[in-house]
């Protein structure tokens, strides 16, 4: 079946002639190169086919699972502590591992004090379908750069991946509008988990409510 941009697509459907820029087409999640036709694309996930000029294509759909992707910033919950390794629940099929030494300034003697149930903001360094995903809490200069354990005062939300992508867009007005009425801290993970902390629990609650309501509000824009 041939599909167009903006259509609801199902796995197996194909897009025969994607627009390319000098022969290059950028593929986002949910698409792969067609096996029969070297120029065409095959859909591998159900959702809405999106296109951004000149040559970017991806499929947006509702998903409760997270498929780890290298370089993603994620929010996770410590599920297990074994020696110098933490097992972090990031919503993927398998728990991700996080070494106690991959925090800023961590040494054998000075390790971060993380308990089961604590929330961390981390970056995925390995994400392969055959391997356990691996997280770090430092950037390439071994600095924390906002990564690391998050406070226990806030609240953790699970949001739709579509809203997450939109929130990360600098032009998206929602966070700015919310910021005008109260101060809050937010950590947005690509895995759909979002950590929110306001000055009071009431503020936290309101930000959380607004984000949850915004999930149903966003239309798919192409």
């Amino acid at each position, binding site marked *: 079946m041939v599909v167009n941009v903006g259509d609801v697509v199902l796995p197996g459907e194909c897009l025969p002639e994607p627009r390319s820029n000098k022969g290059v087409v950028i593929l986002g999640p949910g698409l792969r190169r067609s096996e029969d036709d070297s120029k065409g694309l095959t859909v591998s996930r159900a959702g809405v086919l999106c296109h951004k000029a000149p040559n970017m294509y991806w499929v947006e759909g509702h998903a*409760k*699972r997270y498929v780890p992707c290298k370089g993603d910033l994620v929010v996770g*919950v*410590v*599920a297990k502590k074994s020696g110098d390794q933490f097992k972090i*629940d990031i*919503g993927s*099929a*398998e*728990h991700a591992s996080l070494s106690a030494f991959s925090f800023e300034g961590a040494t054998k003697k000075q390790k971060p004090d993380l*308990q*089961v*149930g*604590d*929330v961390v903001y981390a970056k995925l360094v390995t994400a392969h379908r055959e391997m356990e995903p691996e997280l770090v809490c430092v950037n390439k200069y071994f600095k924390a750069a906002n990564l690391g354990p*998050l*406070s*226990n*005062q*806030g*609240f*953790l939300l699970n949001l739709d991946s579509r809203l997450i992508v939109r929130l990360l867009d600098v*032009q*998206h*007005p*929602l966070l*700015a*509008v919310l910021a*005008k*009425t*109260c101060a809050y801290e937010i950590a947005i993970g690509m895995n759909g988990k979002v*950590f929110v902390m306001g000055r009071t*629990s009431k503020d*936290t*609650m*309101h930000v959380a*409510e*607004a984000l949850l*309501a*915004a*999930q*149903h*509000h*966003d*239309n798919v*824009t192409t």
Partner: protein
Amino acid sequence: MSKLRDSVVSTCEKKFLLNLLKESKRLDGRAFNEFRDLKIEFGKDWGSCFVSLGETQVLAQVSCEIQLPKSTRPSEGILYINLELNPIAAPQFEAGRQSDLSVQLNRILEKCIKDSRAVDLESLCIKVKEKVWALRVDLNVLNHEGNILDCASVAALAALKHFRRPDVTCDGENIIIHTYAQRDTIPTVIHHYPVCISYAIYSNGEIILADPSLLEENVSEAQLMLGLNAYKELCGFYLGGSASVSADVILKVTNRAAKRALTVIDQLKEAVEQDDLKRQQNEEIGFQHSHSFSKDLSQNGNKLADILNAWRTVPTKKKKTEVKPEIVEQAKVEPIGKGNQSAVLLPPETENSPWNVSSDESEETENSTTNKTTNQNNKQEIMEVSSGSDSEEDQVIVLNAKNKMKKTKTKTKK
């Protein structure tokens, strides 16, 4: 590769929830004794029923076949109840493997519905010691947002009530099953409706929440599950967890649950009747014609605007001068989406909002009498402006800008 994962509840969620409960608030804004919306829908087939309790969704399907009766009860039909927790409901559930939770839920449902003899099994008998109907209720959890049991019990009962089995005649040796077209179908006889009502217990019985959501369920100290019918008869009782709850607390909760059971059963019966009526009048039936889905979307669409409004009104009363420029700035932000999305940014049209000129004025008049005269002037100007320009948006922005200027002027006068 795939290991059984338990869902982990983060400490921040736990703390936040418990703090809220201390302030006698719940995460979703419900009262402690408030239940989520219960929706019952029927499919095209007999005995296919979809029940949603808030976001928790269960699909039930009843099927029947002829079997050899149990030797201990040769004149009774057989009822199977089978609840399945698929990975579709929540990622930690595994397909085709019984978890502790599913065993527990199955057992409670069986106790509640089978052991209380809600379904008349003797009427399912075709020939004693040889052939009886076996009814099988398959319950599939489609989404897990807490309190599967309540949802599943309603789904099972509604599906059983809705179900019709084909008629059977016996000519000596042979048994003939008539199709739905040949003969009228036979409804299941149900004596009473034992529905399950769940509660979550916190701080040794001081806080008791009705219809706990997923997070509330995970954080709770103990869970109380009650099976009750419309006659206030207790058909099932399960208290799990580690809280020491006194007997009178349980008695009190049971009384409350009985009231809830009555409303649920009424709703269940009405839903079945409505569906019957629709079938008689040859109206369109089935899941594709139930409108709850589209309704849901439109309701949620307005929710964000509501929250933002309700929230904005609080600071506007306190710091008026600060809010004004804010709103003007906000108007400059271009909504990037089409349709619904733009509504996020559009000025809310409630009385409290600073966009509404009339309410703005009334607030100001309360403040001081000296402002009054300037306000009247202001009003006249507004009139002029509105007659001049074409687009509504422009007007408002101009207005506010002027208001703002006026305000600063009055300030300097003071």
